[in-house]
């Protein structure tokens, strides 16, 4: 996979993963002839980069395109346009979005996914050995013995007993199943792990165990995570940087503590303020957003957030803001990002708290 000479310069800047102007539009078809009558802009011009060894949290409400973005990066679905540049093990930079089948298949060993639903993502008719060993088989580990050894090692790694190898998934609880899914994702020593809501189907007491496991594995195996989630406290705990999405676009991107402590986009601020805090003394003055999330098939003019935004001015109704770097490492897509002083978590939740 030789890098195209013409684009070398452009690509040499890629540290690990660079997503550039990624778009995924789903056509809306109608009638007998399946004429395309519109486009659902699930992902609409998204750019961000992921650094090696970090955890980038991707947050947003349902339908904001965070899962679609993640799936495009793995090429589980083909993006409409844009570049997904990835630095491979051999220090080449490849564009995942246009990679032909063969090389893509090889590359997949480097990027793996952990799914949300631990019940739907494991084949009930396969034993753990087959489930965790399947990626090994696909990538050429033919000896059954070797596979069994590797599976045992993986199960130990995620905190399951290797003796369970011959059992079927139904014998395990939700948390244990999620561990199996993690073991499968790690089977090929990937460098990038895309975790799509990995703990949201789990009970609170088990959720903490799986979060700890993910963090331990990241340290041990030097993994890079793209962590897709809607639970903001989990995202804060695990992420180094956070990208907030709204209707197919990134509205804010920055270091985790900056985003949570001093959000620059009104949507981020409102999102943070809606999280119920498990402390009755902190019943906060919430920012209650009015109305509904915009329809990605028919988004409003200007800034997609303006109909729900308390700070909207005329410019917001007509012109679409671009994601701009307002401070080093801090990207915001809002016309008023520089002059607004928005309440972050500390501001909205203190004051009436006594502890």
């Amino acid at each position: 996979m030789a890098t195209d000479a013409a684009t070398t310069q452009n690509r040499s800047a890629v540290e690990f993963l660079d997503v550039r102007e990624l778009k995924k539009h789903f056509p809306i078809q109608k009638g007998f002839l399946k004429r395309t009558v519109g486009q659902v802009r699930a992902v609409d011009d998204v750019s961000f980069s992921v650094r090696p060894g970090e955890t980038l949290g991707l947050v947003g409400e349902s339908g904001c395109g965070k899962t679609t973005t993640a799936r495009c990066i793995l090429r589980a679905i083909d993006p409409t346009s844009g570049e997904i540049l990835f630095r491979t093990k051999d220090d080449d930079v490849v564009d995942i979005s246009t990679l032909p089948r063969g090389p893509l298949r090889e590359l997949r060993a480097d990027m793996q996914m952990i799914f949300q639903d631990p019940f739907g993502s494991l084949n009930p008719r396969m034993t753990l050995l087959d489930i965790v060993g399947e990626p090994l088989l696909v990538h050429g580990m033919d000896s059954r013995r070797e596979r069994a050894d590797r599976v045992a090692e993986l199960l130990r790694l995620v905190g399951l007993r290797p003796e369970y190898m011959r059992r079927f998934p139904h014998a395990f609880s939700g948390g244990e199943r999620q561990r199996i899914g993690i073991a499968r994702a790690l089977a090929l020593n990937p460098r990038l792990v895309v975790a799509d809501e990995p703990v949201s189907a789990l009970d609170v007491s088990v959720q903490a165990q799986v979060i700890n496991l993910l963090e331990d594995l990241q340290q041990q195996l030097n993994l890079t995570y793209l962590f897709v989630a809607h639970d903001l406290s989990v995202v804060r705990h695990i992420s180094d940087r956070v990208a907030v999405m709204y209707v197919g676009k990134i509205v804010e991107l920055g270091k985790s503590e900056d985003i949570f402590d001093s959000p620059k986009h009104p949507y981020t601020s409102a999102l943070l303020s809606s999280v119920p805090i498990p402390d009755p003394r902190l019943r906060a003055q919430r920012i209650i957003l009015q109305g509904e999330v915009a329809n990605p098939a028919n988004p409003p003019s200007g800034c997609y957030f303006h109909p729900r935004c308390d700070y909207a001015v005329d410019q917001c109704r007509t012109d679409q803001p671009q994601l701009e770097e307002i401070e080093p490492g801090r990207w915001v897509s809002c016309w008023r990002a520089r002059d607004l002083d928005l309440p972050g978590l500390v501001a909205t939740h203190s004051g009436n708290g006594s502890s």
Partner: protein
Amino acid sequence: MAENGHQPLLSVKNLKTYFPTDEGLVRAVDGVSFNVAAGRTLGIVGESGCGKSTVGRSILGIIDRPGRVEDGEIIWRRDVNGDMQEIDVTKQQPNSGLMRSIRGSDIALVFQEPMTSFSPVHTIGNQLMEAIRLHLDLTKKEAEERAVDLLNRVGIPNPAQRIHEYSFQLSGGLRQRAMIAMALSCDPSLLIADEPTTALDVTTQAQILDLLRDLQEQNGMAIILITHNLGVVAEMADEVVVMYLGREAESGPVDDVFHNPQHPYTQGLLRSIPSIYAKGVERLPSIVGTIPHPFNRPSGCTFRPRCPSFMEGVCDVHVPKFQNIEGSEQAVSCFLHHPPAEVTN
């Protein structure tokens, strides 16, 4: 909880709801007691399988087969033309006229899944009007007016048009609002909300919780809020019941339970939630192990295999009784507070 001298609206005493299945007996609810006072909010929290939804369904007498209330009483107190009536729900036939008069008009239920709790082949308005006319003696026209008014009260825009729409035409948040409108259609004195916001996004959740609080302020109904989300309980509840495997682990005023938890399970649960305020550099303290399978309940205290303060010879032999802690409004079932000698004698 009946501190102001009034009788509580609802008293649940030692409720046991079991599901006899082919594989064995599932003790979904195994001895739960609490009171709900008028105008107050009781939060029932617990993880999956702790029996919190079964408690709610037992109160309404709508437990799915083969479940049945094995023991205990559920006393519902209502005012019928100035007379205080006490009805033990567990003694009534689930399909009796009396139960049907309680269900919907006295006690209403909001389900978790707004997607499936509406009929997709009837309009929202028709379903609302059906509920209204079942309990109140109104003409079609009056019922429609009331339906529009209800949708308006729960904050649905253009209610006069919306009543002609089907549930699938509404978004998740609007559908949950319509569900609440349906529950409120006969001015219930108790609203049981079973995971009312679990299927919703955080910003929509904040809207719905705000709505529930407003409505409670307006018509003074009591709410039983069943949820797994400790944040939602902290936000909404006056009193909390923490359940684990069909039993109460701890109960008390919300502030005491969250700031001074007495049961190791409550303590562990509260500690294991990542904080949104700070990135913990350290690992999340988690509760070891998993929730046991219902056919495989541990002897003694059901929490003991996961408990950091497990005492051998005590917790695995005796079953802790749910008792008040002296000098506080909290109650726990734990031998750390009530040594077994007190219990067995």
